């Protein structure tokens, strides 16, 4: 199998596909958007943008779940972490993301117990190992991650395990982007591992309401170019549809067990996205039957709407909408680097600014 996957990285195949895209030239600029931090990393790592014809641009949208998480959500985690007996467990990326003037790593420096975990199951194991402490799992991420939080909650975790829920859904965000003037692209490269969970249904429905080319892409260079070719073909023939160019993982109906887990544990709720604002039914909250696991209720944590969302000078909001290339931010690689990040887009591994910084040339 590793040999088979190596074929998806083969440079001759990548060049051939890039050439066949170039020959589709519609005689006008085409601007596509991906919404996945892993896609950005693959694009940068393999220098794929340099292979694309001049008329084709591929911008990064709000595909980094840690970056779109508003400061007020992180603020709840920071306040939980400062409580006596509480252990705050979350993904490594989240720890350093600034919320207003402080972050989870600051809370840790002030004595808060903040642990990095690989996933929800590790946070549950932590709760089992420390029965006299309260383990709060700060759960961020799109559908791909939400189903893992749901699975952990359904596997009968110990009573001292609770969740601060900051999960978000991709389709409502795409819908919202299409309504923003100057932001809407000519097509969306869809995130393969999100669609592997949900299936294509919600995107087909979106495509009917707001016809726009869409294609599901995987994460090897050949996967990505196959999806781009699909998108450009749709732009050229003027018949938007939802293509699936990652069939080895993505099935039409998604993963039924994962969908069932999400439905059993969560319900949709209005959520704020950093850079975009409030999007109706774009986030997940715990259902009443899992309300006892809600850390915000358990510890009386009310969101503080006064928490400022961006640091002065940071242009993450524009970067997340694909309105600004990170390199065009005056702070990029000068005042703002992964070691001393100013905005979440430079902190998170999947952040667009961080990906561009890691792979910058010269």
């Amino acid at each position, binding site marked *: 199998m590793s040999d088979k996957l190596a074929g998806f990285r083969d440079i001759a*195949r990548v060049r051939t596909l890039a050439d066949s895209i170039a020959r589709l030239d519609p005689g006008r600029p085409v601007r596509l958007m991906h919404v996945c931090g892993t896609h950005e990393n693959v694009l940068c790592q393999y220098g794929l943008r340099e292979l694309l014809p001049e008329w084709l641009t591929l911008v990064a949208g709000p595909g980094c779940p*840690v970056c779109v998480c508003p400061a007020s959500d992180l603020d709840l985690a920071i306040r939980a972490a400062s409580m006596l007996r509480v252990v705050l467990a979350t993904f490594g990326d989240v720890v350093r993301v600034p919320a207003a003037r402080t972050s989870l790593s600051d809370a840790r420096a002030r004595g808060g117990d903040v642990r990095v975990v690989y996933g*929800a199951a590790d946070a549950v194991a932590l709760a089992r190992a420390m029965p006299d402490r309260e383990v709060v799992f700060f759960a961020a991420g799109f559908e791909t991650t939400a189903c893992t939080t749901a*699975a952990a909650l359904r596997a009968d975790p110990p009573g001292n395990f609770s969740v601060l829920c900051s999960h978000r859904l991709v389709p409502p965000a795409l819908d919202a982007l299409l309504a923003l003037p100057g932001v809407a692209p000519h097509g969306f490269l869809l995130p393969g591992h999100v669609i592997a969970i949900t299936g294509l249904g919600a995107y087909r429905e979106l495509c009917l309401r707001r016809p726009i080319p869409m294609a599901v892409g995987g994460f090897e260079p050949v996967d990505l170019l196959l999806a781009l070719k699909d998108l450009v073909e749709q732009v050229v023939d003027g018949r938007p549809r939802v293509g699936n160019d990652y069939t080895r993982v993505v099935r039409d109906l998604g993963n039924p067990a994962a969908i069932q887990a999400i439905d059993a544990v969560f319900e949709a709720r209005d959520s704020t996205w950093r850079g975009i604002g409030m999007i109706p039914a774009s986030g997940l909250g715990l259902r009443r039957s899992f309300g006892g696991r809600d850390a915000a209720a358990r510890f009386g944590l009310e969101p503080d709407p006064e928490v400022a969302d961006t640091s002065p000078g940071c242009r993450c909001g524009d970067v997340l909408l694909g309105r600004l290339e990170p390199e065009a931010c005056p702070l990029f690689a000068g005042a703002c680097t992964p070691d001393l990040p100013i905005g979440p887009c430079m902190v998170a591994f999947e952040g667009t600014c961080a990906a561009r910084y890691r792979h910058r040339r010269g």
Partner: protein
Amino acid sequence: MCLAVPMRLVSIDGAEGKAEVQGVGRGVRLDLVPDAKAGDWLIVHAGYAIEILDEAEAAESMAMVAVAMADEPVRA
């Protein structure tokens, strides 16, 4: 954090499995892939297998690319 990687399932013990890739092994939760069998390639994300890789589809995609390559003029 959203990074998901293919790993091969080596053994199953209830809802837990052992998976490995390139000689590196780790535990993986199987709650979301009830049909997984030892030997399957899984997509693993945040400690959970989220999907089973379809090897026939992988071969088919490669065949499609091969056709595209045969149609292409040879690059000078």
